[in-house]
């Protein structure tokens, strides 16, 4: 079985920064997996996700989607973004339109689908994220949790096979967090893979099948969550006992 998304030995240094953000980070995701990405602030979780979506280009290493190496051309990038969706930490950074419908429609419109198909996808994604009744509301009238679900719907409307969610449960109350995880579970049931970067270790432990641990620009361990949380050294590394 070929992996859905492979990040192989990625190296990256932000322009103007002395420290490398990624130093040979590798991660391999298969279809229908629930993976939590944990590690300290600055370990490289967000940078890794930006690479998986082609927003950053590694100085060395390779990104492969369904076995195909990522090509950094307009067409190649559109192809990877069709398969790999990225949900950002702050929905206000992602929601660009004052109209909920129009915001969700942005991705599918960029895929060049016809209007009827875009409409269908918007409604489907909105239903999946439980924001159907918000479609006619202005974006600025939504609560934080609602904005997040709209942002998620905007990514899901592109029907990606992998969802990368960067700290999306941070700042949500337990009910809202639960709701977001339930949405992820629905996606996983459809064969989508979800990679969730999080500092919420108890949620990571309960929700994820696999936990990937990042430290200083590398993925130092990937294993079933029981194995990660059962290992004293790894527990210390991710701050599970703090």
């Amino acid at each position: 079985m070929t992996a859905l998304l492979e990040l192989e030995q990625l190296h990256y240094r932000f322009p103007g920064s002395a420290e490398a953000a990624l130093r040979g980070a590798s991660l391999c995701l298969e279809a229908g997996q629930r993976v939590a990405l944990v590690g300290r602030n600055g370990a490289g979780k967000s940078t890794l996700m930006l690479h998986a979506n082609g927003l950053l280009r590694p100085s060395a290493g390779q990104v492969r989607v369904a076995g195909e190496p990522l090509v950094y051309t307009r067409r190649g990038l559109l192809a990877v973004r069709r398969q790999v969706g990225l949900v950002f930490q702050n929905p206000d950074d992602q929601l660009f339109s004052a109209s909920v419908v129009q915001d969700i429609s942005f991705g599918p419109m960029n895929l060049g689908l016809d209007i009827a198909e875009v409409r269908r996808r918007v409604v489907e994604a909105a239903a999946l994220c439980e924001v159907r009744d918000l479609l006619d509301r202005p974006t600025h009238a939504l609560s934080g949790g609602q904005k997040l679900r709209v942002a998620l719907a905007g990514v899901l409307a592109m029907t990606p096979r992998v969802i990368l969610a960067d700290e999306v449960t941070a700042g949500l109350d337990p009910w809202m967090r639960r709701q977001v995880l339930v949405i992820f579970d629905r996606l996983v049931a459809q064969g989508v893979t979800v990679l969730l970067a999080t500092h919420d270790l108890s949620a990571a432990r309960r929700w994820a099948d696999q936990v990937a641990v990042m430290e200083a620009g590398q993925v130092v361990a990937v294993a079933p969550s029981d194995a990660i949380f059962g290992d004293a050294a790894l527990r210390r590394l991710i701050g599970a006992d703090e």
Partner: protein
Amino acid sequence: MHIIDRYAYTNAIRELDPAQKGGLALIAIILCLALDQPAVGVLTLGWMFALAVLWARVPALVFGRALLAEAPFLLLSLLGVALSVSLAPLAAPAVQLGPLWLGSSAESLAMATRLFTRALGCAAALNFLILTTPLLDLIELLRRLRVPETLIDLMSLTYRAIFVLLESLQRMTTAQATRLGYSGPWRAMRSAGLLGSQLFLDAYRRSQRLQMSLESRGLSGPLRVLPLDYRRDRRARWIGAALAASLLLVGAWR
């Protein structure tokens, strides 16, 4: 800003096609300007008030407050028309203030009245439009009218950014206030200056993150989104015809 926005999204004719609402306002504005008579201006005001309050169910108070907010600008500019100031003595009615003479005349008063009613009628028409039509729909209308896409994108991003930055502004102000940033006029001035520069940086960083998130959703050229759906109301045509007929009648009557 917030109150206008709120009614724009919640009024009874929110769903109505912005072309129809814009058309009504446009008829009123064109006739008001072209006929240029106090009675027409007053009648336009009456029409727009009635449409906003009875048809769109915007509270009369809100409509009145929007007009009141505009009135001072209007009155200030009228002063220059209604009054003349001169160093030489003016014919009555006039008053002397030291070396200056302040006077007025029947013509200038009539001119001021005409200007005032005309501007009031037009302002009322625009208020009707903005109180019943969210900016989003107006932008959508401009899109349909084939306004260049770059302008449309700028407008929609700006409109969204207003609210995002307003939230940042509130957060930052609170953060400064809890550390006594506004205790005393000098400190307040300094804090406000800092706030301004920070807000600029905040907007800049946000724009970079927004660019990334748009790219991750396949941004390529203009921001393409679904056109919005609206309800068309046949009554709007009759209202438009009645509006035009009544204004023309009053205009021709004199």
